[in-house]
């Protein structure tokens, strides 16, 4: 009786540990990115290939966008809101992210670098 209870408890713990493992795998790393005319902070971001990340995007001034063309993802960045952009990079390399919402004289230079190792 006592033995079987121990087995049940151990199985339960294992299941919990397994579940937490799965949960940890699915939980993306949150990376905060702030945009203001005409720069991103940080302007260089390093992530690992296959690592799920969630960019939390905010604007310090006007309506902007963040676009990572090589991965086909983008998001508006609306002042007063925290926007989310999910990415799990499937290739390594150095890529550009940029503002794709015209924001004034300097917009054309508003970009950053995403390094995927």
């Amino acid at each position, binding site marked *: 009786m006592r033995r079987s209870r121990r087995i049940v408890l151990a199985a339960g713990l294992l299941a919990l540990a397994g579940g937490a493992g799965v949960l940890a795998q699915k939980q993306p790393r949150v990376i905060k990115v702030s945009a203001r005319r005409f720069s991103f902070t940080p302007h260089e971001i390093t992530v690992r290939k296959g690592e799920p990340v969630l960019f939390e995007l905010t604007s310090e001034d006007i309506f902007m966008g963040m676009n990572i063309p090589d991965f086909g993802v983008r998001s508006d960045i609306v002042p007063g809101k925290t926007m989310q952009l999910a990415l799990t990079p499937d290739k390594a390399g150095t890529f*550009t992210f940029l503002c*794709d*919402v*015209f*924001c004034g004289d300097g*917009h054309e230079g508003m970009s950053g670098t995403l390094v995927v190792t």
Partner: protein
Amino acid sequence: MTSAIDRRQFLQLAGLGSIGVVFGSALPGMARAAGQDDFYFVQLSDTHWGFEGAPNPDAKGTLKKAVTSVNALSEQPDFIVFTGDLTHTTDNPVERRRRMAEFKDIVGALRVKDVRFMPGEHDASLDSGKAFKEFFGSTYYTFDHKGVHFIALDKVSDPRALIGDEQLGWLAQDLAAQSKDARIVVFTHRPLFDLAPQWDWATRDGAKAVEMLMPFTNVTVFYGHIHQENHHMTGHIAHHSAKSLIFPLPAPMSQPKRDPLPWDPANPYRGLGFREVEAEDRGTRFGINEFPVKA
């Protein structure tokens, strides 16, 4: 002395590839329509009036030189189109209007009075095209000229570079009235295809417009934005970008950033210019003749 090249002379030379090119614009088999004539128009683009900076020490003189050159063409075009970024952007609405007024005054010296204007993002993206409309009218429109149906699209009044559902609906309605072999020319500031997305030379919904145009056999697109000549096909539709009249930009993805090419004192105005576009009566191709800006 005029620097103009007679357009007939150009067309003769174009076949030799010496000073210009004639692009097939996927208009094969177009029957000659009664009453259609040869004509040509001039495209000027990206004048960025109000810009100041090292890439063009003669920013206040370049547009005026282009106007003088167009006026010197031995045979004047039927009309002239400016494909956007007439002015350089500013946060100040008063200054924006001042630049537009000055631009309008300068191009008012063109001998040809049929002049069509389109906005670029520098003109329209910060105020949804409000100032542009005050000075130049609607940001998108159509007109017909000697058997060719011209469509000017606005994908800049929305700062996200979207044409938008309302305008796409308007385009669909307009195209519904055209025959499938109609001769159609589209003017747009930004490309309707993804040329270099890493430089934002791309489109969010331009592909929807291209999809609508696909059933039509005779479509050619002329645009600006990228400050250089570029020729691209999406299926049977040819897309031709024009040079700028302020500073040239590098070839797509040819360098890490899309910074303007530096001014070359030994070769001033290099990479700047305007073009003639010859619509031939058979409608089988457009001749494009590029003109430089001369000191």
